[in-house]
């Protein structure tokens, strides 16, 4: 952040004093970037550790949510409406390949609303680059997403889905999603500090967004009069990119382009909002 550079702070040149006794430890002082990475990693590890060490079913919890959702939609569409015969097959793989990245998105955005308040004590007492509070959420939810992929692989094997070479696009999709989330976090986290109502609003918007992101249905199923609006949702192209690993027809470069442009816009707006608000946020801590 520009502001933090102006303030000087601790990320300056390492101490080169030759008189003092701590000189022997200072050479291991890291560059600002290495230090940022180190702190980010420590906090992410702490998140995961607390989650997995304090719950008996630690890992299961992080995949139970998408699994339950997949089960419900599978029952509703295949069991009750008998829609299983149409659209992409197998439907359960179609569902999971959209629901798992959605879980990452959803979990991170929910956590953004408490990014500062949850760590108020630490923010008041330690000067850590402020963007870490957003990036660590994106990172730890992203790691949980990666951990949940074996579940998708199992379902794909047992349901007999065909893996396409386009699975190689997954790292690209994850990068787009990470950029989009960081941008959203830089906007949501500071603004929630001032407008508590936003916390509830975010929950509602997320629920709406779930149905607007073509997760339980194909974008082709949407009536053509709505398709233009749905296509503007940057999540649609992103989930299509993930899904192309099993369903090559889901890949639309036009929609992916919308995702890329959308996430870059979020990031740019996020950086601006964060810079302008961080002073006031810190006073509220």
């Amino acid at each position, binding site marked *: 952040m520009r502001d933090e550079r102006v303030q000087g702070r601790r990320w300056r040149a390492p*101490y080169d004093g030759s008189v003092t006794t*701590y000189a022997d430890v200072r050479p*291991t002082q890291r560059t600002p970037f290495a*230090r940022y990475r180190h*702190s980010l990693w420590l906090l992410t590890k702490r998140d995961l550790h*607390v989650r997995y060490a304090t719950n008996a079913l630690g890992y299961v919890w992080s995949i139970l949510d998408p699994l339950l959702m997949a089960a419900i939609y599978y029952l509703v569409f295949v069991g009750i409406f008998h829609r299983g015969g149409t659209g992409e097959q197998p439907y359960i793989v179609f569902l999971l390949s959209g629901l798992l990245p959605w879980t990452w998105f959803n979990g991170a955005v929910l956590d953004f609303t408490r990014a500062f308040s949850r760590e108020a*004590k630490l923010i*008041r007492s330690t000067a850590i680059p402020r963007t870490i509070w957003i990036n660590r959420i994106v990172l730890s939810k992203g790691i949980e997403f990666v951990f949940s992929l074996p579940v998708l692989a199992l379902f794909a094997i047992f349901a007999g889905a065909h893996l396409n070479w386009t699975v190689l696009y997954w790292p690209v999709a994850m990068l787009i999603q990470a950029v989009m989330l960081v941008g959203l976090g830089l906007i949501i986290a500071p603004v929630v500090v001032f407008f508590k109502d936003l916390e509830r609003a975010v929950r509602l918007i997320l629920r709406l967004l779930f149905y607007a992101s073509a997760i339980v249905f194909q974008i082709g199923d949407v009536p053509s009069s709505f398709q233009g609006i749905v296509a503007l949702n940057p999540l649609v192209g992103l989930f299509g990119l993930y899904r192309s690993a099993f369903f090559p027809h889901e890949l639309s470069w036009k929609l992916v382009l919308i995702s890329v442009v959308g996430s870059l816009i979020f990031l740019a707006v996020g950086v601006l909002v964060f810079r*302008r608000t961080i002073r006031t946020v810190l006073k509220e801590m």
Partner: protein
Amino acid sequence: MAETTTTDAVATSRAERAVIDVAGAGIRFKRNRRSRRSFKDLFSTRTRRSRPDEFWALRDVSFSVRPGEAIGVVGRNGQGKSTLLKLVAGVILPDEGVVDVREGVAPLIEITGGFVDDLSVRENVYLTAGLHGMTKRQIDERFDDIVGFADIGNFLDTPYKHLSSGMKVRIAFSVITQLDEPILIVDEVLAVGDKAFREKCYRRIEEMLAAGRTLFFVSHNEKDLRRFCKRGLYLEGGALALDADIATVLERYNSEYGV
């Protein structure tokens, strides 16, 4: 011969380079926390003039600190002492002016802040020291010192939340003072803990001062201020009223508000 002179010159310039440079720093807060906020408030630029519902907690504060100085901040309650400390610690940012801190800071402000209730004492030590920039190897090397100083040997694998409040403060103090950061910031945290441990903490601070650390100390206790500090900053109404040696500063404080 010529070489020696150069080395001396370098040493002098190093000693004189300020570690903390505060120039025209000011920060304002809302008078009424509950007052309505608007998006305009949120995005207000840092130099905008103050509005009626705001006050300057600090304004036009300028001073610089050389390495190894021990500075005591004096003033009544609500005159901006803790705010100044937080600015130097980097946990809040000034609305105007510059606060330039060129070295790492070991902040003894809300020292238990970084500790996680659900993690064990051992994990917490690694986490907090790590967040302050120590590598795992450095922590390994000092782990025994940290635990030894806090004197809580049998509770290493106890969840932090099960420690007594005294123990919590002891382990936190112990970690922060092992950080090897050149600047130490102390905000009256030492009011907690029993007498024996407080004396132990004071001796640790004196050792650190003797080793060349820079100290920034806020206290109401005149004895403590005289014990550690050479120079005093007297804050009055958010302005730096006097910057002199600690005896002069305390004299003026006592003459104005003394008992």
